[in-house]
């Protein structure tokens, strides 16, 4: 079993496209389920290290340890769910190409331990994200895609600058080798490298100050694409950012800066979500808010908090996927995603899904989101960061306010228009909510997985040279 | 000799880039862009990277300029229907 299959199999499926051009949706489901199975079979053989072509220092190394395994499983799961969701809508070539490529990009991002290879996967995932944004082929979609492209070009420029400076000064690109020699670089140059890497990944991970574009992109694209963006794309960039941060042993003041950025992201995003009235914008800003909390928690470089942050990544990804897919059903029916449409129809099932997933997002007891948020709060309290605790609790009120506003919008207009939801979609959405509920009631196994992952992420998971 | 050539090429690159930005006629900009591509080809050759030079000559000065020319023709068609 080789780790490269996570990259090679989707590429093969993509290049063989002309052979089965009528059945792309079925191939997509089969591919993603295969990858999910592959990811699950890797459980017992962690950590796995694989070298491409030659040995170090020129080798590209692929590493699968606890943390990246957790994310890889999550990504393949989400991809499978989304492709199952699209099964009913038939053959869509553009969606197939872009989403499969996005899968290649994000799995490469978390698997690869070579900085330039990471850049390649960064580009692959970015370009597929532009394509996904432009999927609707109308003026709004093109505008969003072009804006995304300009921002993305800046991100990759800064990333390339950082990579170039690293290669010029120590002559290696493998992350483990860089971590060993990073201390040898002149401190001012170190700061410059960290800054450009931070800007590069921060733009894509939608951090504060660099995220002015996010809501427009989500609004321009389809809702089902939004689920891919918020569950896969930003999470993988965030993972790489913090993976590098931990490996390079950045100073406490720089970690504090990251935490500050996280807190600012959180506050700004939740306020913006409160102000907006378009459901896709609201969920986009809420994704930003969650990313803020995750950044804040990860910036403490503490085992318990990092585990909690990983848990939040998992629960948030599943909840957001359910929300966006439900929204996509609405959008396909009404051709709009303004929050007033919620008052126009009668669909108790969809309403229930949105409500339950929203509750999990908010952190209400029987759901998995609650466990994640609670462990973040207790972790912060055990580090005596009471300011952060108070901030999260306070801002969560705002989150509660806009989510309840959305839900009351639902209740007002009962019985106007019936919305038919196919049983397969019901099954899919119900599965996701049950997943959230199940992990909320029995959080122990998941928490243990997250703790092991956090330990391996913080421990530097050093690849022996 | 080589350092002098490098500096001369760099200066002409700078001139080509400035001309590409500030010339009024878009066609002149495209021409300057092609000049920029050729200049960088020479630069790569001077740095003894013939592979990169070949790529730059074919893609930078050839295909890139073709895309610009096509875009130029399309927009001009739009202006005078």
């Amino acid at each position, binding site marked *: 079993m080789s780790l490269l299959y996570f990259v090679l199999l989707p590429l093969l499926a*993509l290049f*063989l496209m002309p052979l089965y051009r009528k059945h792309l949706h079925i191939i997509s489901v089969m591919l993603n389920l295969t990858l999910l199975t592959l990811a699950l079979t890797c459980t017992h053989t962690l950590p796995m290290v694989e070298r491409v*072509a030659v040995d170090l*220092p020129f080798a590209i190394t692929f590493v699968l340890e606890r943390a990246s395994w957790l994310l890889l499983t999550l990504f393949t799961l989400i991809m499978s769910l989304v492709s199952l969701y699209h099964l009913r809508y038939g053959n869509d070539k553009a969606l197939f190409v872009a989403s499969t490529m996005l899968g290649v990009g994000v799995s490469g991002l978390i698997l690869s331990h070579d900085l330039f290879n990471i850049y390649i996967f960064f580009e692959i995932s970015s370009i597929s994200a532009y394509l996904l944004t432009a999927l609707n082929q109308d003026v709004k979609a093109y505008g969003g895609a072009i804006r995304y492209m300009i921002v993305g070009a800046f991100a990759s420029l800064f990333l390339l600058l950082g990579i170039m400076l690293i290669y010029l000064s120590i002559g290696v690109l493998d992350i483990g080798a860089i971590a060993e020699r990073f201390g040898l670089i002149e401190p001012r*140059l170190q700061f410059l490298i960290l800054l450009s890497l931070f800007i590069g990944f921060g733009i894509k991970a939608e951090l504060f100050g660099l995220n002015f574009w996010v809501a427009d992109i989500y609004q321009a694209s389809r809702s089902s694409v939004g689920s891919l963006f918020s569950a896969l794309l930003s999470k993988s960039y965030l993972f790489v950012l913090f993976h590098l941060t931990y490996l390079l042993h950045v100073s406490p003041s720089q970690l504090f800066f990251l935490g500050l950025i996280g807190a600012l992201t959180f506050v700004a995003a939740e306020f913006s979500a409160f102000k907006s009235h378009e459901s896709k914008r609201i969920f986009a800003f809420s994704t930003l808010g969650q990313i803020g909390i995750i950044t804040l928690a990860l910036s403490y470089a503490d085992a318990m908090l990092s585990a909690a942050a990983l848990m939040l990544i998992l629960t948030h990804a599943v909840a957001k996927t359910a929300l966006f897919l439900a929204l996509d059903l609405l959008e396909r029916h009404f051709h709009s995603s303004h929050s007033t449409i919620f008052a126009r129809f009668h669909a108790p099932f969809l309403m229930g899904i949105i409500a339950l997933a929203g509750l999990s997002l908010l952190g209400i007891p029987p759901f998995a989101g609650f466990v994640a948020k609670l462990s973040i709060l207790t972790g912060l309290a055990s580090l005596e960061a009471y300011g952060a605790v108070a901030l999260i609790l306070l801002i969560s009120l705002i989150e509660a306010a806009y989510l309840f506003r959305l839900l009351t919008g639902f209740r007002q207009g009962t019985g106007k228009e019936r919305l038919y939801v196919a049983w397969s979609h019901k099954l899919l959405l119900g599965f996701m909510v049950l997943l959230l509920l199940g992990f909320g009631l029995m959080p122990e196994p998941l928490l243990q997985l997250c703790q092991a992952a956090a330990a391996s992420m913080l421990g530097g998971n050093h690849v022996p040279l | 000799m080589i350092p002098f050539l490098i500096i001369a090429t760099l200066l002409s690159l700078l001139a080509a880039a400035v001309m590409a930005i500030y010339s009024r006629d878009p066609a002149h900009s495209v021409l300057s862009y092609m000049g920029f591509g050729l200049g960088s080809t020479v630069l790569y050759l001077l740095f003894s990277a013939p*592979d990169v030079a070949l790529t730059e000559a074919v893609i930078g000065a050839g295909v890139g300029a073709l*895309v610009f020319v096509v875009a130029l023709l399309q927009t001009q068609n739009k202006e005078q229907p």
Partner: protein
Amino acid sequence: MNLKRTLALSHLLTGLLVSVMIIALLGTLRLLTPPIDTIGETLLHINAQSTQVANAVTSVVTYFRGLDTLGEVSILFLSIFGVALHMQHSTRNLFGAHDTLLQIGAQVLFPLIVLFGVYIITHGHLSPGGGFQGGVIIASAFVLRFLAYGDHYEPSARLLTLSESLSGAGLVLLGVLGLLLGDRIFAQILSLGTMGTLLSGGVIELVYLFVGLKVAAEMTLLSQHFIKARDV
């Protein structure tokens, strides 16, 4: 968000970028103590041992960093797919010239240019060049025909797509075969031959062949889409 604000934003970002780059360059000029010299030596040493390829750049591109090349090929595929998706309704040719001299010239030059491209691809492991460059050169022969013949020249889009896809699949399959038969991606499953001859380098030559075919088909498709695009 209107155009003005977007523009202002991009100016701001450009300013930021330029200042950071200038600072970086000024800083690096003083601070760097490059260890690069040693890398080149090591690389040539490894290359002589493991690949038997005269052009060391080629063995870096296709073998040591084969995965990166695969990624770049798929980036190219993705961007050309994007262009094709949004420009697919071609109506008329932009260059409607009917110049007899140009047509005859194109007829004479077409096989020569293709031959040159094939030469560049197949000699990628011996001299500067390789799949990317040769592929683009072959595509430029097709561009010449587009220019000369206007609407009367339509290469089969189906054939182009098929050759593009199959060469990409061949590239990935080569990697998978390396994983299955050897121990790593693009492992040398063929004999290496002696350095400097045409049939040396084993898998590397095949990789460049596939890359060249793919790039040629992709670039031809791309230029066809651009030249025959409907009024935007």
